[in-house]
């Protein structure tokens, strides 16, 4: 739908491809509401807390954005994250070489997971939802098998490097910004990025222009897999252990962050700017829920699941195609 004189309201109800400015407005409004209702949100210690919670979700959502833009979905990222934390915790030693080798192996594992998903979606022509749901269960099964009651071993040096902080700045912050910038570059400045958008927009047309669509599709899942592996490594370092359930919340939360950020599941529209705002919104609301339930002495984990579900439904309602 093309309108020359679009008012703010009509833009609000007909989000266009680059609607990231819009989602930042929503975020700003939310921040104002939150600060009025829950003033303790803006204390420095709480803000740094929000940030620590935000980084893993941000990392995994960068990968999820590529897949969703290309018209797919990856419901296996949560299990991939858990599995990677366990791989790291099982093989890591204390020497620099051993740490580097573990990181390399974990990234390779993420690459392999993503490749498996991509090949099943592209070559075997199974719908992405079914593929990643099933591979998710398979990864989860392997993670349970690797899980040890002790949580394995993560080198203290690795933890120090990954969670290092200098005042306001910290290593997690740089990690997130670094991968976000790489993602931005890939999506907005390269041919590959344009193909990702085109693939989600209309696969047939892209294929008719002579592009190998299969390769682009597989690449999107590989990116999601590698980002999940990086998330897993970060989580393993932060918690200093591996666990079969560490990744569970990230599957739905990453989809929520991407969709809230204005990239619909139909693909081809949206982008990382929106996703970043989506990540901030999801993390902020989760944190606010913690603060509120602390105030009323409630068990916040129980309400978090409801919150995630409700936000995603509202976002889908908001962005649905008007016919």
């Amino acid at each position, binding site marked *: 739908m093309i309108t020359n004189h679009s008012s703010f309201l009509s833009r609000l109800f007909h989000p266009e491809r680059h609607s990231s400015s819009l989602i930042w407005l929503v975020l700003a409004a939310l921040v104002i509401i939150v600060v009025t209702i829950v003033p303790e949100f803006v204390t420095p210690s709480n803000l740094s807390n929000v940030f620590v919670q935000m980084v893993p979700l941000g990392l995994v959502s960068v990968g999820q954005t590529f897949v969703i833009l290309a018209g797919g979905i990856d419901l296996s990222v949560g299990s991939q994250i858990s599995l990677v934390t366990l791989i790291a915790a099982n093989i890591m030693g204390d020497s620099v070489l051993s740490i580097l080798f573990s990181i390399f192996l974990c990234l390779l594992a993420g690459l392999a997971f993503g490749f498996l998903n991509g090949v*099943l979606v592209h070559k*075997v*022509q*199974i*719908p992405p*939802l*079914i*593929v990643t*749901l*099933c*591979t*998710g*269960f*398979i990864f*989860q*099964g*392997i993670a*349970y*098998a690797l899980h040890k009651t002790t949580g394995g071993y993560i080198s203290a040096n690795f933890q120090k490097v990954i969670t290092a902080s200098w005042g306001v700045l910290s290593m997690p912050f740089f990690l997130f910004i670094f991968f976000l910038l790489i993602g931005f570059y890939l999506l907005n400045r390269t041919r590959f990025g344009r193909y990702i958008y085109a693939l989600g927009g209309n696969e047939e047309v892209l294929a008719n222009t002579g592009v190998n669509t299969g390769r682009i599709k597989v690449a999107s899942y590989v990116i999601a897999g590698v980002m999940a592996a990086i998330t897993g490594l970060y989580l393993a370092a932060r918690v200093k252990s591996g666990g079969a359930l560490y990744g569970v919340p990230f599957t*739905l939360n990453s*989809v929520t962050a991407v*969709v809230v950020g204005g990239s619909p*599941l139909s693909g081809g529209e949206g982008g990382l700017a929106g996703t970043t705002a989506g990540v901030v919104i999801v993390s902020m609301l989760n944190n606010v829920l913690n603060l509120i339930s602390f105030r009323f002495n409630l*068990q916040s*984990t*129980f*309400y*978090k*699941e*409801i*919150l*995630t*579900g*409700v936000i*995603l*439904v509202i976002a*889908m*309602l908001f962005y*649905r*195609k008007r016919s």
Partner: protein
Amino acid sequence: MSAARIRKPDQFSFFLKNYGIYLGLAALLAISGIISPQSFNPTGLLNVAKQAAGLGIVAIGQTLVILTGGIDLSVGSIVTFIHVYSVGTILGKPELVLPVSLLCLLIGLAFGFLNGLGVTRAQISPFVMTLCMDFIVRGLYFIYTKGQPRGVVPDNLRFIGRGRILSIVPVAVLIWLGVAFLLIFVLYRTTCGSRLYAVAANPRSARLSGVKNDRILIVVYAISGLLSAMAALIITGDMGAVSLGVGGDYSLDSVASTVIGGTSFTGGIGGVEGTIAGAYIIRLLTSLLQKINISNTGKLIIQGVLILAIVGAYSKKKNG
């Protein structure tokens, strides 16, 4: 007439598509006979059927949803919710069983109805809607139980899960087969059934021929919720205790039963009759794996691979 009549595949693939599931069942039965001959007798096999009853009923609802091209990922949470809610409300009082059971069926229906509304009126894709519902219902049962479910299951509720007619045939199996045959009749012998296949196979032409697509879809999701609640009551009766871990596997298990039973994700192909065997196969597989000491871990992996293999084989056929 059902849409299945219109397709005319060649003889062999027709045979495989319609009866392949029973070949698979026979093969699995033979394997289980070899692995544990001591439980390979009518009593043992009926026991598996009793364990499969709850899953069988959930899977019937799942089959209807998948037939329409959707998927219901909220059944697992609905089963757990109804399970903890019924036990926590009845609190061992036999006179409360009937009213609470009816209330539970209504609650299940309401969850399913909301799924249906989200999918049709709000145009949210089925798996997102039901995944969100899964999270919401999970949050609800955690809030309801505060993490510690309590209550006692009275004898008359235990009867529908554990009881046996003439001390041979489990009541649960009779309920399962009753529901299955009712829905087979509805699908193949009523206008409602052929409309469902029409909506599933080609929504546009169904709408143009005067079918109210949305209404059919809402009813299908509502039935799935209702059947999940019914299954939860049977499972509660069979267990006789209360636990938060009850429903966790039912989403994957019911999807697996449906797919193994020959219903396709593309919609409009398949039916409830294959799902009966599918659910039995899943439970037989579970008990076999337990016998050779492969825990839940192995079951997750095997089911994942199984669904991928079956869906993959089907999609290859379609392209080739």
